[in-house]
């Protein structure tokens, strides 16, 4: 299975997949992504719903049974984890070559 067709991930997708390493419903994802990104990435409800539909189609996330009858709960799939790992590797390499070539962070 060639997963590289899913790469590179958009920043928003990356955040969503990381958020769904633990299961949660749609609003949980919105809050978690805002937290993970220190407030810089805020996904609105309409955008969120579309993103979830797309990720379900791509089988990067799945719906899991939930006690909450009114809210569907999602979690990352094994395929999603593999894609996420590949992407993290790609990003680590990019950061590494930035460091090696003297590109300093803005801290």
């Amino acid at each position, binding site marked *: 299975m060639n997963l590289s067709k899913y790469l590179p991930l958009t920043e928003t997708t990356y955040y969503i997949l990381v958020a769904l390493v633990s299961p949660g*419903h749609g609003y949980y994802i919105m809050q978690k992504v805002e937290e993970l990104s220190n407030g810089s990435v805020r996904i609105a409800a309409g955008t969120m719903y579309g993103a979830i539909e797309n990720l379900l189609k791509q089988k990067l996330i799945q719906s899991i049974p939930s006690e909450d009858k009114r809210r569907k709960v999602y979690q990352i799939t094994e395929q999603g984890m593999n894609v996420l790992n590949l992407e993290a590797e790609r990003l680590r390499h990019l950061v590494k070559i930035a460091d090696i070539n003297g590109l300093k962070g803005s801290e």
Partner: protein
Amino acid sequence: MRKHKWFLVDLQKEEKWISNTISKGYRMVDKGVGWYEFESYEIGEILPIIRIDYRVFSNVNKLNDYIMLFEDSGWKHVAGGMNSEKHYFEKLTPDANEDIFSDHRSKVERYKRVVSWNLFFFFLWMICLVESFDTLHGIFHLNEYYYTPGLWEMKGTEFVSHFLFETPFAVGRGVLDSISIIMPLVTILFILKAGYCYQREKRAGQMK
């Protein structure tokens, strides 16, 4: 206060019209086919803003989950159900620019859904059209919609009674055939308009 207005495919235009009405001191509370219900509302720092999403749901659980997501994030579902493609959400906020879409692409993709839903209907109507193909020319020769054998050779009261009896059925057949021509054309018009709106919104986003 009920306002009668038709908006078909141009979601942007519809949102603008609703915002305009709201700015005059109203809040949207309901919607039906061809009408909007508004209530008086005193606008202060907080504005009631309405945004529209276009989505079709195959079952009521999916719809409820969708509505819940919006409600959790502060958007109240004002109108739209299993039978409607448009869903109207309201938020009370001081920020007039708040939206149910946080990126331009997902907002523009509303029109893609308009196109695919209408495409589906186009194919359904085409099937109807093919089914009624044999009888279509009756629209130009209305007498062909009368199936009573020997009707046109009858005379006097015999003719009149048979003719009047069958007329409602003949009219019904004519109407059905007309619909099966008109509806595919209507869906094509919707698709073209949605395509135009999609391009317009896409370009507007690129200019920012």
